[in-house]
Every structure is written in structure tokens, then in C-alpha cells.
């Protein structure tokens, strides 16, 4: 693995399009940022949910080790990993308690799909930034 590729991949994961921007691919960077940011924003506006890793805040070290994921609904682990693709936005959502999910709204499911889709697309964008940084792609 090329160090430069890894660095731009991490930048691209943290902020959509940043990995391309630092490699002077400005048009792509702006389009990636707008598309992914719009999807995440629309998802939140529709009342979508951002899934946390923990059901409850861990209280002990053992909670960190053995209560990593929601046991009553294990499939939400997949949603957690998809949402994690939003990078810095995911971290901000944990700090500011965004994306609690409004189940009573008709748009809840679509909103959740928008946020998860944005995260998955951002994983691909970050990998694309890696390919450019590693010289595999222009």
C-alpha cells in the first residue's frame, strides 16, 4: 500500500471529495461533496436514522469488548457500517445527537436509506481517491 494513497483515502473518507481535492481533481471533488452531502442532508431532513455502534453508552471496559453491537437486532450492525462511511459527519452526528430517527414519519425508511447510501458511496469515493494516489488511475 502506498502511504500517499492511504492518506488521501482517509481524507476522502473523513470529508467526501477531500481526497480528490488534495490531488487537484477539483471538479470531481465538488461533485462528490455535493452529491454525498445532499444525500445525507436529505436523509436527515426526512427523519432518517443514523445507527450508533452501541445501544447504550459503554460503562466499563468489558462493555467495550463484549457489548460492541446491538444484540436484539443484529442486522443494524450493517446499517452502522454503512453510516460510518459518512466519516466526519458520522462523528458529528454522535456529538450533536443528529439522526435519532423519526419512526412516525412516512419518509423514515427512505431517509435512513439515503444516509446509508451516502455512506456506502463515500467508501467507494475514498477507494477511488486511493487508486489515484497510488497511481493506478488518473
Amino acid at each position: 500500500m502506498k502511504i500517499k494513497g492511504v492518506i488521501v483515502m482517509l481524507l476522502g473518507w473523513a470529508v467526501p471529495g477531500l481526497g480528490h481535492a488534495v490531488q487537484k481533481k477539483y471538479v470531481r471533488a465538488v461533485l462528490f461533496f455535493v452529491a454525498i452531502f445532499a444525500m445525507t442532508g436529505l436523509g436527515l431532513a426526512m427523519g432518517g436514522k443514523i445507527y450508533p455502534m452501541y445501544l447504550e453508552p459503554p460503562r466499563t471496559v468489558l462493555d467495550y469488548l463484549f457489548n460492541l453491537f446491538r444484540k436484539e437486532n443484529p442486522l443494524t450492525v450493517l446499517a452502522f457500517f454503512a453510516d460510518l462511511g459518512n466519516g466526519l459527519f458520522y462523528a458529528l452526528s454522535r456529538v450533536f445527537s443528529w439522526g435519532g430517527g423519526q419512526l412516525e414519519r412516512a419518509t423514515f425508511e427512505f431517509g435512513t436509506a439515503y444516509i446509508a447510501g451516502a455512506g456506502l458511496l463515500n467508501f467507494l469515493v475514498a477507494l477511488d481517491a486511493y487508486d489515484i494516489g497510488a497511481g493506478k488511475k488518473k
Partner: protein
Amino acid sequence: MIFESLLLSMVVYAFFVALVLALIRRDDTKARLKYGLVLFAVMTVGAVAFGWFMFLFIKK
């Protein structure tokens, strides 16, 4: 309430996904445009067609 129409939600979702994937998977502008349009059409027409297909199994 934003996007009460599920069809509109789906079309906008397909647009963004097609845009990002076209930029990632193709290298020149013409190929990107073609790939993006095909992807968008497949997602929207496919979803509408599948919606009508599910209509066959509706419980009355």
C-alpha cells in the same frame, strides 16, 4: 414534510447514485454521461416495473 412522494425520493436517490458511480467507474466525459444515464434509467424504470410486478400479489 420533505419528499412525501416515494417515487420522487427514489428518482433523486437514483440520480445521486448514478452521478457518483459514473464519475468513479468511467474515465472520459462521454462514457461517464452514457454510463450515468443508463444506470439512472435502469434504477428508475426497474423500480417502477418491480413495483407494478408486486401489484400482482396484492391481497384483496
